[in-house]
């Protein structure tokens, strides 16, 4: 192959449209971290197994390591940086993970937060089974899953009480 072609890629991340010049092979995870400096999205395995790169695309959680940036132009992308409000007030999932000790080293946390955020936006009163099912695709190597489940449960609770 000759010199690698560059693409002008429009990415709408956390409500802001930005332009990135990158080859087609640029993974969304790398475009977020490298080109846009949004290093909150972590990269572990790059084959879809660990879940720490999970971001929301049009509201649905997807693996940013298994998505080419060029293929999600103009879609609504949300990353962990977009969770807290402009004034720094934490999102209910962040608040709950803090409160319930849902993290230790924090490597897996962005993926869990985005996955939990999508779950709670669809259903703010999930059953234990639904919580377990939702986070089953995310791996955590140090906290253990009990606190993480408790945090998701608590995040739903905070969301419900905010609504009232």
């Amino acid at each position, binding site marked *: 192959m000759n010199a690698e072609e560059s693409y002008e890629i429009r990415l709408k991340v956390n409500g802001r449209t930005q332009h990135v010049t990158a080859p087609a092979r640029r993974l969304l995870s790398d475009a977020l971290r490298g080109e846009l400096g949004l290093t909150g999205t972590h990269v572990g395995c790059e*084959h879809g197994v660990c879940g720490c790169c999970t971001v929301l695309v049009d509201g649905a959680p*997807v*693996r940013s*390591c*298994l998505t080419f940036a060029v*293929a999600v132009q103009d879609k609504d992308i949300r990353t962990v940086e977009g969770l807290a409000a402009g004034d720094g007030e934490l999102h209910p999932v962040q608040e709950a993970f803090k409160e319930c000790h849902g993290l230790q080293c924090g490597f897996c946390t962005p993926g869990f937060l985005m996955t939990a955020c999508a779950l709670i936006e669809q259903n703010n009163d999930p059953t234990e089974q639904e919580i377990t099912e939702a986070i089953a695709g995310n791996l955590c190597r140090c906290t253990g899953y009990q606190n993480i489940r408790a945090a998701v449960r608590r995040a739903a609770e905070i969301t419900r009480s905010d609504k009232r």
Partner: protein
Amino acid sequence: MKPSPFNYYCPASVDEAVQLLSDLEDAKILAGGQSLIPLMNFRLAAPEHLIDISGLAELSEIKVDPDEVEIGASVTHSQVLQSEQIGSELPLLWEAEKLVAHEVIRNRGTLCGSLAHADPAGEMTAVLSVLRGKVQTASVSGGRTIQAMDLFEGPLQSSLRDDELIVSATFPTLGPNAVSSFREVARRHGDYAVAGAVSVVEYDDNSLVCSAQAAFLSVGPVPTLISLDDLLVGHRIEDVGYTEIYNFLSSQLDPHGDLQTSADYRRHLAAEMGWASLEACT
């Protein structure tokens, strides 16, 4: 690791997509990318050109008729699970889709991509086989229908030509006297199955079996279809019983061993799953 360089195309129609497929040397279809991108990240695949069909509206249809369910090539696993109509007309497809990876993968991965990928560990390949479904294709020289039994040629090898894409997959629905069930064992929920079986049993008016088929996943280079007609027709599954069915299935299965498990244990698991799925059809 990172993928090697490629050119990206986002055609506006199927016609344009098949033209690109035919014109470009070493081009591949990109659907959800949930199988292809891991392979590219590990440089096990390095196509020069990718043709993205995930946004094609003409491939996004789900058609549910009383006799069959047809699913377009850009329909994701999650969209199949969101179709209440599929849930009521072909619950087997829902049961199987829930076993495909995790929701996050299902949000981008497509059902037709699973079939084109031809992974013998894929739930969709087994369901298409046991229901004797088919896929419709398109190419510059015209489309064709490929029956399930002709689609899968080897591990990750389908009978699609390089210039051909799957437009849709069609699954026949089950008659009122047919029952189906899917059972598998995976190391963790959402992982590829170590072994699994999907059975479809039809009954006559006296509640005796008149047809019994089982398709097995992860036990060979392609989904393995086994007919239990000789053993079960004219009988009740529970009367023939576990031992006879287990022994019959074990004698028919010839799986491989790998890092996960030995060939013998996989044969045992597959025969157990075969029995469990048949028992669930009683």
